């Protein structure tokens, strides 16, 4: 009797877990449009540090985790400054090449004299 019921119970448990996961995902708007998705990401980011703190307190590891250093580097700013530097170097390149060539020729002339 128990041997017959057990597979059914197992299947029912699995289906309920999978169904619950699907429901949570649908309900929290994770599968909606991009506005809902970015809102969900914002909520998750806001919820992570307090959750980590609570878990740390629970396990008694409060003092051991070093605080995240505040990273002032912005990838967007880095990329933009890189682009600006590249374009300005490219625009100055002919002038500089001309200068260096003239200097080189002058040097050679002085050597030959």
């Amino acid at each position, binding site marked *: 009797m128990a041997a017959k019921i057990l597979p059914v119970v197992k299947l029912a448990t699995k289906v309920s877990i999978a169904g619950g996961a699907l429901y949570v995902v649908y309900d929290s708007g*994770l599968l909606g449009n991009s506005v809902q998705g970015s809102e969900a990401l914002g909520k998750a980011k806001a919820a992570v540090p307090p959750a980590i703190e609570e878990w740390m307190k629970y396990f008694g590891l409060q003092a051991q985790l070093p605080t995240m250093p505040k990273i002032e580097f912005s990838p967007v700013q880095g990329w933009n400054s890189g682009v600006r530097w590249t374009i300005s170097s490219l625009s100055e390149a002919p002038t500089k090449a001309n200068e260096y060539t003239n200097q080189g020729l002058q040097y050679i002339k002085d050597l030959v004299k």
Partner: protein
Amino acid sequence: MSEKELGKKWDRCLADGAIKIGTGLGLGIVFSVLFFKRHTWPISLGSGAGLGMAYANCQNDLRSHYMLQRSEKEQV
């Protein structure tokens, strides 16, 4: 579309992409462990589906500026 608006749309696209791929991966892992004996293919299917949904959303969002909305159509 102004530069600022375009920038915001791209930000939304990337955030949404991260969410959808993560969700797809998570659901894929759940289904793989529960029903498919820990094979890899549900995980790949889930992440791929998430990526596809994010791509479609992004495409829709970027095109929406140039599409005539229903309310505008009625006015015209």
